[in-house]
């Protein structure tokens, strides 16, 4: 291992740690309202509020690219079934905090949780 290698590794660890830390702080902020936005092929498919007791019927998104089954249970959102080859969206698990997202690349399905902060009513997550 040479000097430049060490610089590269240290820089990357610092960069990644700082951004992870910033993300964590952001996600633990108090949001008065959370909502879920499901986008399919870049267009908004469905938007709904999310709180601790949100339970919904499974949302089935079917396009010519394929099918994703989205479940909302106890205020958490997850993709429980998909017919894409990589199954990355299913393996990603459950999300419940603003800024988190689930992506199914082959089907171009994106599920994002957005938050509204208490002080101004403006959506603080940039698009």
């Amino acid at each position, binding site marked *: 291992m040479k000097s430049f290698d060490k610089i*590269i590794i240290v820089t*990357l660890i610092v*960069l990644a*740690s700082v951004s992870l830390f910033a993300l964590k702080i952001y996600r633990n902020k108090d949001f008065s309202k959370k909502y879920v936005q499901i986008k399919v092929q*870049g267009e908004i498919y469905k938007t709904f509020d999310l709180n601790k007791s949100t339970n919904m019927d499974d949302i089935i998104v079917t396009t010519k690219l394929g099918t994703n089954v989205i479940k909302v249970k106890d205020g958490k959102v997850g993709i429980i079934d998909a017919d894409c080859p990589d199954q990355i969206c299913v393996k990603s698990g459950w999300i419940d905090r603003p800024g988190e997202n689930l992506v199914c690349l082959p089907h171009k399905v*994106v599920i*994002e949780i957005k938050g509204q902060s208490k002080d101004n009513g403006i959506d603080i997550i*940039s698009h």
Partner: protein
Amino acid sequence: MKTKKLVFISILVAQALVLFIVESMIPVPFIAPGAKLGLSNIITVVSLYTFGLGDTLLIILLRIFLSTLFTGSVVTLLYSILGGIFSVFAMFLIKKIGKDKVSLLGVSIIGAIFHNIGQITAASIVISNINIFLYLPVLFFVSIGTGLFVGAVSKYLLIHFKKINLFNNM
């Protein structure tokens, strides 16, 4: 192009393809979307140290084109091409800037990172959503691990490559 060189490039492409297929058979724990070992990158690193930028680009484009034919999914072509080109140029630059201060390990870590950046860029274009860049910090950690592994393997491979007289005059 000399015949010898032509043959060697073909062998490298074939090896990269085999590694690509072998990798798809290895089950990897799910850490973050897109995280994988990147075994084909061994060939990219070796080629970058044996030939130059141009031939490496040729090898990587051939590999991507052929692996797309094998897997049969054209959708992944854009991700692979952007990831591949990003990583080759990044590795070439860091090798040039670092000169003898940077070893294979650092070069291949940079390659792994920029492969991820390229793929996420492609993905964010496809789904028109910039927020998936938030996966990058986690992928950085993964890349350090996989980059070190790929770098170490390439180092041993190069030692043996250098023994073969054939390559001295290329």
